[in-house]
């Protein structure tokens, strides 16, 4: 460990991100961003930007958003299940 590292659990100078209110703002911003990028699909009829997106089934409304969300939730739930089977103590391999 670096000799200059002095762990301090309480830092007097609180940062912007230390306030839960600001974290909530970021999360709300993310929700709005999600709504915006999903809403862009509504403009496809006008802009026709998905004509070059293949395979064709990916041109369904909201496909990428739903796919990304479902995959990530499924990934985490599967990984949590794997943990029950695979997780061991940190010194498991210590000879």
């Amino acid at each position: 460990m670096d000799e200059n590292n002095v762990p301090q659990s309480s830092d007097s100078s609180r940062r912007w991100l230390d306030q839960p209110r600001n974290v909530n703002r970021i999360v709300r911003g993310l929700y709005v961003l999600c709504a915006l990028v999903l809403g862009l699909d509504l403009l496809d009829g006008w802009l026709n930007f998905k004509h070059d997106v293949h395979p064709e089934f990916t041109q369904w409304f909201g496909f990428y958003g739903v796919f990304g969300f479902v995959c990530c939730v499924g990934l985490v739930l599967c990984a949590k299940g794997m943990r029950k089977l695979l997780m061991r103590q940190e010194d498991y391999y210590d000879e």
Partner: protein
Amino acid sequence: MSSCPPGMLLILGGLLLPCLSRNFRRAGLVLLPLASGLHLYWLVADGLPDPVAMRCFDLELTLVRIDRLSLVWGTIFHIAALISAIYSWHVTDRLQQAAAPAYAGAAIAAAFAGDLLTLFVFWELTAVTSVFLVWASRTSSAFRAGLRYLIIQVGSGVLLLAGIAMLAGDQGASALVFDNLWDRFEQGTIGAWPVTLILVAFGIKAAFPFLHNWLQDSYPEATVTGTVWLSSFTTKLAIYALARGFAGADCLIWIGTVMAAFPIFFAVIENDLRRVLAYSLNNQLGFMVVGIGIGSELAINGTAAHAFAHILYKGLLFMSVGAVLFRTGTAKGSDLGALYKSMPWTCAFCIVGAASISAFPLFSGFVTKSLIVEAAADNHYDVVFLVLLFASAGVFHHSGIKIPYFAFFGHDSGHRVPEAPWNMLVAMGLTAVLCVGIGIFPGPLYRLLPYDIGLDPWHTYSLGHVITQLQLLIFSALAFTVLMRTGIYPPELRSVNLDTDWFYRRPLPAVVGLCRRGGAGLRDSVGGFAKNLLEKIGKSTHHVLGPSGLISKTWSTAEMVFWVSVLLGSSLVLYYL
């Protein structure tokens, strides 16, 4: 100089560096990649040179073959060596300062090898030199991990040599030219055995599924700087070898698909952030292997471009986590958090690396990974396409969000440390500029690629692609946020997760121990019986033949005369009768 393989300067320089004083060693480490890069530039300045051949034991070896495919790897290997050298400026350990450039030089020379035997020599040299970067940690766990790494890497070389020997045995030395082996196999000019052996050899180094765990086992055990060097060369050399020898091999599409998907599950639950990065490295290699399996010009260009970009952004992520490890003494997610307060520059560079690996528009991964995914869609591999999409969302989840979140944000771990050293910041800054530069101006990279297929620099920036990619990534971020805020996301715990290395770290030693104990028991029982038997024979023999035995004891002259008289008398009586 024109017949000297590119990379040789690094190998020889690496051997020389330990003899120099500290400051010369530092300067030499940075100057060597520059000198080697200038050597390569000089070789190709007037167009691609003719191959350099050499006769050795009746074998015609092609020491140097510079073409557009090898040039992509040669170029990025030099850039990676230079950046890693700057990152390692503070290191004074002679072992690392010798091993690192020699390792980089071996990888570069291997990429320019024109025949399989030359490839084998440098292939093994990468293994032998790189293990010192693991051992340089000088801990017992690093020593053991290094031994495992060395055995597996050398094993890969042995398989390669066996394949080469079979090829040469079947068809003579002319069959050793390193071109598309898969095409030759499909045309029936070479047999299945040598091709399989060589494919497995390449597959071990490329970390194919079930052959992969040396990567996650050894890289996190290496030194802070050693991991940065390691992340750039070994696996990408294997990707080059596959692109050269197995482009269009259908089996690679499915191997790559599995490879892109499975490591992300492990990455989600892994606590050691360097090991998380090793899993995501494995996942990114999967994309490249799929591209090689598809084998079209677009797919091979995509693979080469992705390898180029990947070396940079993966190096950047390893550098940022390495800087955290250097300052705090740990890379475990459970012990880190809120380091953005202490290490803001490192945090910013990590986010650039995370955005690049996640393929955010304007970052390097977006303009390279998309070529491979597009090639899969164009060739109607819909299942492969969906798995790659899943892997793209997953890599954003565990590398794009998890690494920055648990190291630099999340709960405050209380670490108050100085920012990373200046040399680390310079190396990370340069890499970050390249990651963004490639993302915004992909033209120069596209022009470097092996095939001229008229790739427009803005090829991947169609409105549809940008919007759909943003949808995929932002909703993946939403999933992470929802799971974190609902407490469903698995917390970072001090633990290890079993992977395929479990087989050779637990059951195999147990079986060997059992055999050893069984063998020892057998030896003891059989040996004991034989020993007893021999002792009995010895005693009886001794009784008869020993110094005081019946046969050999000394008799007095009177006794002898008596017995001779008895003998003569008896024979006289017998004769008379």
